[in-house]
């Protein structure tokens, strides 16, 4: 599984175009010709990805915005980042993300 470090700094792939439609984010990845529509949580995570905020700072920002426990927010952010990475929407080599076959984060 993916192990996402708290101090990692996710950054959007430069070939990704984004559009906001009625509050949701849609992305187009030119390199893979893939279009994606993000759900609410993923849209919020994407808006906070600026190449400067760490994962921990993104979680903290959403902790304040959501009425949910921190573990749930963290799990949602991890899931969103994993899916964004799987679709090639995050730049590689800019964050401390590694593979791990053990369970847990």
């Amino acid at each position, binding site marked *: 599984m993916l192990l996402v470090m708290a101090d990692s700094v996710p950054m959007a792939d430069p070939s990704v175009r984004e559009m906001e*439609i*009625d509050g*949701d984010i*849609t992305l187009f990845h030119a390199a893979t010709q893939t279009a994606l*529509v993000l759900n609410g949580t993923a849209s919020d995570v994407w808006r906070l990805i600026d190449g400067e905020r760490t994962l921990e700072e993104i979680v903290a920002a959403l902790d304040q915005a959501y009425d949910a426990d921190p573990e749930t927010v963290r799990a949602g952010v991890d899931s969103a980042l994993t899916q964004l990475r799987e679709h090639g929407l995050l730049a590689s080599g800019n964050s401390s993300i590694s593979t791990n076959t053990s369970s847990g984060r």
Partner: protein
Amino acid sequence: MHSLASAIEESADLLLHAGAVERAGQAVLFPGESGVGKSTLTAACLIRGFGYITDEAVALDPDTGRVTGLARPLMLTPWSTEALGLDPALGGWSDESADKLAFTAQSIGARAVTEPVAVGHVVLVRRSGARSNPVIEPVAAGEVLAAVLAASFNHYRLGERAWEAAARLSTQVQGWRLDADEPVAAADAILRLLPQRLEAPTTAVEASPAL
């Protein structure tokens, strides 16, 4: 659009797997995979007075946002034919599908719409299974966009242009989720979405005499 296979390889339009009908200059699209009930719902709408665009595929012009339909008869299963109360003798056995009857729009009493039409509504159809009455509710533009992209035949050829056209369409239409089983009741629910034409009063209104 006369041949879907050649259009997929050649067209500059975004081709969508969708049924489509027209009323008051607006197209209503039903994107979805085979088996979701596009043809049956399209036929039900024709019975309720809509114009026929297609029961299978539309071409969306990215520049104008208007759609034209794949020119072909409606393909209905014997179950759909019976559910709609259509006389099977009005149709002929389809060359494309051995278990379906082919009906022209005219045989159902509807007009065929061949000119490009602006899209007013996108209806995401789902068979409810349990509900007796259709339920139609608005959906967000993002959900419409996801459905439109999933219904596209040729987005892989058009790339970014397809994404832009689908996103533009999603923000310009009203999106709906329709849960229904009975096709004519579903068509009535769609009909209620559209502005009704005001009828002229049958008697003149006389001015009240001044008091």
